[in-house]
């Protein structure tokens, strides 16, 4: 039985943990040669080893998505090694649970460097290869914060809004060469990042429950569920889908709870 990504070459940035790790595992399960880029060496190597142990093809490269040379070099090495690049999942990102009033310029730059410039770099070097081969799919991890937000996620929301506009720009650029570019908007997902966010609150467990409850499905996503959305957008099943954002958010964006806005800090 053929698998959806047999023999395909896939890069996942921020693939050491969380949504990226689930995406890497899911692409590998579907037959892809997966390359994880991350700054987290132990978790990146562990995730790649898990993929190999379960019979898949996975490897890890240390790279900071905000470092142009590192991203350029990683993409070029992978392409010269495998001869092509079929999918870029530009996923690496960080949170900052702060109001704009409390955000220093240094913090602002760090969030924008990783979440927006990092996506630009990963997508730019991927697009250059994909345009040459006249095929490819890019999936970007954005966030519902691109559209609705909380009072203490200013820099994060701005970075994700930028990423969504970048998705559309890249989609228009890639379309004449059959390169599709889409975003996923994950709702609250049960990842190490979310648990770190919840630690800001006085009662982290209660905070996680409140996170879950703002989603109409009344639970958090498993990272595997977000990964399935990424795989769909990257797959041939989505061959007429480009420039759009798929909410994998348990109904968060469509159905307003009417409750008070959720804050990371309580």
């Amino acid at each position, binding site marked *: 039985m053929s698998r*959806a990504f047999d023999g395909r070459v896939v890069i996942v940035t921020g693939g050491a943990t969380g949504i990226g790790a689930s995406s890497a595992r899911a692409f590998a399960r579907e037959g892809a040669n997966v390359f994880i880029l991350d700054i987290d060496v132990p978790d990146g190597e562990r995730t790649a080893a898990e993929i190999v142990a379960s019979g898949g093809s996975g490897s890890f490269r240390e790279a900071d998505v905000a470092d142009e040379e590192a991203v350029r070099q990683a993409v070029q090495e992978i392409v010269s090694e495998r001869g092509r690049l079929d999918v870029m999942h530009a996923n690496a990102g960080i949170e900052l649970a702060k109001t704009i009033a409390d955000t220093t310029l240094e913090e602002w730059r760090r969030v924008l460097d990783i979440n927006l410039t990092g996506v630009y770099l990963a997508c730019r070097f991927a697009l250059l290869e994909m345009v040459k081969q006249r095929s490819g799919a890019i999936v970007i991890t954005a966030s519902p914060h691109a559209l609705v937000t909380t009072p203490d996620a200013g820099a994060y929301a701005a970075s994700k809004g930028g990423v969504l506009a970048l998705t559309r720009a890249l989609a*228009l650029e890639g*379309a004449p060469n*059959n390169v*599709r570019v889409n975003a996923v908007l994950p709702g609250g997902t049960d990842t190490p990042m979310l648990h770190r966010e919840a630690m800001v609150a006085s009662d982290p467990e209660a905070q996680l429950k409140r996170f879950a409850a703002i989603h109409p499905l*009344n639970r958090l996503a498993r990272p595997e569920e977000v990964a*399935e959305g990424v795989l*769909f957008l990257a797959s041939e099943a*989505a061959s007429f889908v480009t420039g759009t954002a798929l909410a994998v958010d348990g109904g968060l964006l469509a159905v307003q709870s009417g409750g008070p806005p959720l804050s990371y800090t309580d």
Partner: protein
Amino acid sequence: MTSSQRLKGKVAVVTGATSGFGEAIARLFATEGAALVLGGRRSGAGDALSAELRSLGADVQFVAGDVGNERDADALAACARGAHGRIDVLVLNAGIGYPGTGPFWEVPPQEFDLVFGTNVRGVWLCARAAAPLLGRGASVVVMASMSSFVVYPGETVYSASKGAVLQLARGMAGDLAPRGIRVNALCPGICDTPLTRWFIDTADDPTGTEAEFAAFAPLERMGTADEIARATLFLATEDSSYCTGSSLLIDGGATIR
């Protein structure tokens, strides 16, 4: 995303199944192992499609009727209840693009009613009749349109109906979320369906119109009914288990420029 037989053991109801998107969805769902209850206005086409899918080994019922008619919507749900006792996947696809075209002041009230009666009331009636048969884990897919978000010249009434049906899908998602049932909308752009072909063939300049349609999306082609069917399958299965209230645009990028 595993391959093949992804709807084995599932009961799927598809409205508007006699041509275009609905027919492609019925064919793909049959291939994926679903038991089908199909609805459509044209009994000849419905019977022929059912017979063909049965000959390939599928369990298929066809109910002739108009989704905008309460008795027909109830009959479709009753057929699913009688044959299977439940519905796992409900695809509310039936819709019309014509009549009702032109600037709003030229549209006769009966044409407005026909468009809304099918595209909005028909979706609501079928969902309403099917709601008691949907259990935890069931998935509803509503066929909206890129016209749920944007308006093209001459399509004011159609676009209003597709805007309404998107909001209906979101509201149903909220209503059904506590029962663990998901509702999502598919929003296609210009696709190469029999309706589009009819539009091309009856245009003053068919070749020019076809080229115009192909150039409409940044991907520089029309979509296919099969591409709509594959997106419907994603929303119908556990692959989209955390998607509800989502609208999936499948328009080749047409609405981003």
